[in-house]
């Protein structure tokens, strides 16, 4: 099977500082891979490279077997890669449906005016499908709870992603019940054959959600483990570099 995303020997340095090196990872459709590591381990740099914010200093990125190079975030987006940012990147005073289509608004043929009806409809059917419970597609983001907002951000990524979704700490700001709901939502994305790369500080969450775990430490890839074949102690040892055996 061709991996959705294939990273080979990725290296990125800023001036003389190496943020990440020797990083290789294949991500398959319908697979959730968790990226773990301490602060400054290079997780964010890696996300930025895959989402087109940074160009790698060296190394290859391939999507469905084809080598690609993104000049900016729009280029990555047009290849079917979506990011759910930690701050969600939602416009709080605007309705849900305008956020769903932010920067990609639907217009009518006549005078190029916005087609609000269609955006509302598509938004409603998407949140219904994904079981994101909000009062309506016309609700203002400001009036929604943290979990609902996260749901909207993920639904937006799902709507536009054809290949890959990058999730940066999707539940960092949520309560227990809301976290559970968001995890269900993320797990349900597997059925859509999307590849998912998730950054999380919660190892419990990583073990609940992921198929494989990739550990980074100080810009180096320590290893990739199948979640079913490892345990928390091993992952913690890999993250910290301290072995208790």
């Amino acid at each position: 099977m061709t991996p959705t995303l294939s990273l080979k020997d990725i290296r990125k340095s800023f001036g003389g500082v190496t943020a990440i090196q020797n990083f290789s990872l294949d991500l398959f459709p319908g697979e959730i891979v968790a990226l773990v590591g301490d602060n400054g381990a290079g997780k964010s740099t890696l996300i930025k490279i895959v989402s087109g914010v940074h160009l790698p200093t060296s190394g290859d990125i391939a999507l469905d077997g084809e080598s690609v190079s993104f000049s900016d975030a729009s280029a990555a987006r047009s290849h079917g890669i979506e990011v759910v940012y930690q701050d969600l990147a939602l416009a709080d005073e605007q309705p849900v449906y305008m956020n769903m289509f932010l920067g990609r608004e639907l217009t009518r043929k006549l005078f190029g005016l916005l087609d609000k009806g269609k955006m509302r409809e598509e938004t409603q059917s998407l949140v219904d499908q994904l079981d994101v419970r909000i009062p309506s597609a016309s609700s203002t983001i400001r009036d929604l709870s943290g979990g609902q907002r996260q749901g909207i951000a993920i639904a937006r990524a799902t709507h536009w992603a054809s290949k890959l979704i990058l999730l940066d700490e999707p539940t960092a700001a949520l309560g227990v019940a809301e976290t559970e709901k968001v995890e269900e939502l993320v797990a349900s994305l597997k059925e859509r054959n999307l590849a998912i790369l998730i950054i999380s500080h919660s190892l419990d969450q990583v073990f609940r959600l992921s198929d494989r775990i990739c550990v980074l430490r100080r810009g180096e890839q320590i290893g990739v483990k199948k979640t079913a074949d490892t345990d928390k102690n091993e992952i913690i040892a890999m993250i910290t570099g301290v072995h208790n055996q």
Partner: protein
Amino acid sequence: MTKPINAIKSLDLQRSVIYFGFLGIFLFFAVILYDDGFLTSRNLTNIVLQTAPATIMAIGLVFALSAGEIDLSFGSIVAVSALSAAMAMQSGPMMLGVAAGLGAGILIGAFNGVLVAYLRLPSFLVTLATMGLFAGVARTMTDLRSISVLNDTFAGIFGSGKLFGVPSLVIWTIIAVVIGHITYRNTRFGAHVLAVGDNARAAQVSGIKVPRVRLMVLMLCGATAGLAGLLYAGRLQAAKYTLGESDLMTVIAAVIVGGTALNGGKGSIIGALLGSLMMGMLNNGLILMGLQVSDQMIVRGLIILLAVAISLRDVRR
């Protein structure tokens, strides 16, 4: 579940302030000044005519504030535009005057916009500086003299003319409000303006060209101020450096009272129209009441303060 309920409350309050304020002031003057002719169609038409330039500038300002920027220089742009138009028409045809007036406005707006959008200087400071700068330019253009506009066609179209019995200033107001409202509510540009003012980072990662939006709203402010300058020149059949000087407070107050947020992401063109008409009624009514100019300024200032305080009050805080 208290959140949505509070949200509805604050939304209702902020949205309805302008309608209640507008109606309240109208009824107050209608009763108090009935014998002084406030309600005559001539006086009411006069209010609309006098507020036309302010209403049109308010539309530009709604876009700027919604995008999280502000323009303080539009008063000076009015003077430069009116003088440019009048000077161009001293020897040239009307179209040259229109092009000079609008062109001057758009150019100054672009100057503001480039500094704000691409050099990342705060629009408050940039336009505060260009307000002074172009007030000076307006004074040097004619050595403080006023110049008359002798072109009758221009004076008709931009001033005292009528089309099917409707004064041209009313027509300009309606055209500007309709185009402004549709652009604001129903185009991608309008949506991008709101997104940039609401959350610039979200707009940027969504592929919206944020600097371009900032440049555009400040150019739009310049364009509306340019048009306002033409309307002043047309109505007075003359241009002077003092034109637009006193519009800054009126226009900002009209826009804020009309429900546009000072920090971006939210606004209303119809609200700005009503806000502008409300300011016009206030001016007109206070004059009819026979107040001294100094007293008018005090009362107007207090009423604006009250209206702004109510419309900015956030129930949830």
